């Protein structure tokens, strides 16, 4: 009794349909816009997805536990500026140390979020709205109206966004994008095959049941926030590598983009279901639509935010409506199978 219906679950349909939507968007834009399916577009989208996708991994971990992290944009900005200024001051800093510094900086900021949410029992949306502003203020204070420039950075940093790691035809894969893909695969694995991953789902889908099962809920939520901070720190480093010029407003708005990616990617906002891969696909679709509509209809940059908002609303609505419908369609044959098993 292994039909495709049993092998593919409604949640996976979500990811397949995202791929379908991406293909459809590519076809429409490719047909309507001259030179859309070019190496340049690919490069632009992957560079942007590299950063948002990295943040979205952490956001997924947090959202799975029924929480949210709105401070990620500030963490990205703070880390980008902080690591940038350290590299400018010590150009000899080894690349590994720079990455470790970025991850630790982000992790520390995430730790603060996690402690307040998990142990202080302050709702995550309030906590991280507060730290969103506070971390940004720390950055503004630290930056003191100075800008980090490309010229002040060691060349290997900037090269990360220009080098070609390998190419598929005309499409060059940059190291930045490759790093994010590796991270997505890694965390997809963590969610599927580790105790920690399973606990994230359990705590998000039914906190009381998790408590009765003796799961350390507070520690797990704390860990999710710390990891989210670390990944945002890593994204800060990627941000630095991509743009080179960093001001005190760096990374602003990434919180919205990451939440949009997660929600469009099918992670349930009430926790308990969703995958990192879905979030990456969500980030990809959003950026693709943004780029495409920008060039096709000539909409302004400001419309992009509205587009994000619209996509979030559509995704949440389809979550309850479409997924509910899919579940019913799936449940019907499952029940029939049950009956026939009995008979």
């Amino acid at each position, binding site marked *: 009794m292994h039909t495709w219906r049993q092998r593919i679950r409604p949640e996976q349909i979500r990811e397949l349909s995202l791929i379908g939507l991406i293909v459809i968007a590519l076809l429409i834009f490719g047909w309507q816009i001259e030179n859309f399916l070019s190496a340049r577009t690919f490069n632009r989208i992957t560079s942007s997805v590299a950063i948002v996708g990295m943040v979205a991994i952490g956001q997924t971990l947090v959202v799975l536990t029924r929480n949210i992290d709105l401070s990620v944009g500030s963490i990205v900005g703070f880390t980008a500026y902080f690591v940038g200024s350290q590299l400018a001051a010590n150009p000899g800093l080894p690349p590994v140390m720079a990455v470790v510094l970025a991850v630790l900086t982000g992790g520390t900021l995430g730790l603060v979020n996690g402690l307040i949410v998990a142990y202080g029992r302050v709702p995550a949306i309030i906590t991280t709205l507060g730290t969103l502003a506070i971390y940004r203020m720390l950055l503004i204070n630290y930056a003191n109206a100075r800008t980090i420039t490309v010229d002040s950075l060691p060349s290997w940093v900037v090269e990360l966004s220009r080098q070609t790691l390998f190419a598929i035809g005309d499409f060059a894969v940059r190291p930045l994008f490759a790093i994010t893909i590796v991270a997505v695969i890694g965390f997809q694995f963590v969610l599927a095959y580790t105790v920690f991953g399973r606990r994230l789902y359990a705590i998000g889908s039914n906190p009381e*049941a998790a408590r009765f099962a003796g799961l350390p809920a507070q520690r797990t939520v704390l860990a999710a926030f710390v990891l989210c901070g670390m990944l945002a720190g890593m994204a800060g480093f990627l941000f630095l590598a991509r743009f080179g010029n960093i001001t005190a407003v760096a990374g602003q708005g990434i919180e919205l983009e990451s939440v949009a990616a997660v929600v469009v990617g099918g992670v349930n906002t009430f926790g308990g279901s969703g995958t990192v891969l879905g979030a990456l696909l969500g980030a990809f679709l959003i950026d693709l639509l943004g780029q495409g509509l920008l060039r096709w209809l000539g909409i302004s940059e400001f419309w992009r935010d509205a587009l994000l908002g619209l996509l979030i609303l559509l995704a949440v609505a389809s979550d309850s409506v479409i997924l509910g419908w899919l579940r019913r369609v799936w449940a019907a044959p499952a029940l029939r199978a049950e009956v026939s098993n009995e008979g």
Partner: protein
Amino acid sequence: MQGSPVLEMRDISRRFGSTQALAGVSLRLYPGEVHALLGENGAGKSTLIKIMTGVHQPDSGQILLDGRPVRISSTLEAQRLGIAAIYQEPLMYPDLNVAENIFIAHAGRGPLVNWGKMYREAEAILAQLDVRLDVRQPARGLSVAAQQTVEIAKALSLQVRVLIMDEPTAALSAHEVEQLFAIVRRLRAQGVAILFISHRLEEVFEIADRITVFRDGRLISSAPRADVTVEQAIRDMAGRSVEQLFPRRHTVRDETLVQVRDLGRQGAFHGVSFDVRAGEVLGFAGLVGARRTDVGLALFGIAPADRGTITIAGQPVRIAHPRQAMRHGIAYVSEDRRGLGLSLPMSIAANITLPTLRRYLNPLGLLRRPAEMATAEEFRRRLAIRAPSVEVEVGKLSGGNQQKVMLSKWLNTRPRLLILDEPTRGIDVGAKAEVHQMIDDLAAEGIAIILISSDLPEVLAMSDRVLVMREGRQMAIFDRHEATQERVLAAAMGQRDAA
């Protein structure tokens, strides 16, 4: 007789799924009469109240108000007809003051609040009840007794004619009960018909003019108080029909596994002492509010005890967290499958292995999914869980099958003491019989079982001994052969041994 009834329920029936909650019940409420309703858990009292207040509709039968047939389609309609109910836990708006709470349901008083008038009228109503309460005080922080008074005042402000009081005294002190009864007598004198539901027999016999007993959704007896004795009332409540008595095997072993002495938790229960031996089923009987579940939660560390000792296999232990309880071989299958027990969007396998994930790690620290599947498959076969595969979401299963997944999850922790809290509530007869069979099998394997159940015939059929609780206190422990429905009920209602 006091003239004609204000409210008459005529031949009311109501079914929920396979349960006949009410079967042809007729009841008359007269003005100026306190009518007490007695019955065991699930006798149909709540269903009747819900029909009277418009929460449920009867499948058949008639409701007459002042002799005229009425349809009570909603609680608002019930209120309009002058029928109101107050409960053990009053429903207050804690941030509104007393006067606002009293008048919250009033419509048609214009769009603006006339504060002065509202305070004056609230004071007048409270004075009518001879209650002194600051009408400007917020409801938050009022005692339960004071909140009930506010509820009664609210009902009075709506010209109540039938007042239903569901377990109003359960959370009150003796003094507060006296005050409440003074109010009840005053309402009776004013011609209000009162339906009074309580598990405290002495109170019922003190306040009621007429006593009606329900059992299995039927009216068993109804007579003026003077013609009823306590013994007779208990006899009428007991004697529940038993579908089929489960033939328990004798599986009790000599070894005492768990010793509990003088266990208590502030504000919940106290003075609970018992032993459970390997292979023994110790039943916990009691009526609603007996606090049996709190004892289970204390043993499992969810709401730890703050008094008394627990000894497991001769070792005194402290249990402050479920993890500690699990380490000592205790498992707790909760009554609330959806809320406390299962993660509905997760698969059967993931639910079963959740408390024991560490067992499924390979040397690299990664989960061995095939091993998880194998465990789940094993339980699916053993407990006959009906599902197309163990990867199916638990939320898609029927109640009985969810119950089995819950049980699998906890059996997989390999418990020595299994606490089953209402394991058969809300599942159908067939699944119930399977659960009973399972309990018997588990006891035969040497697992000690605490069976908390509000289904008295079930407790009596399945238990080797029965511990009876009432309002947080242990009333008695009966051996299997001494435990009759009458004796257990009498203890649960705070009566001396009636048998």
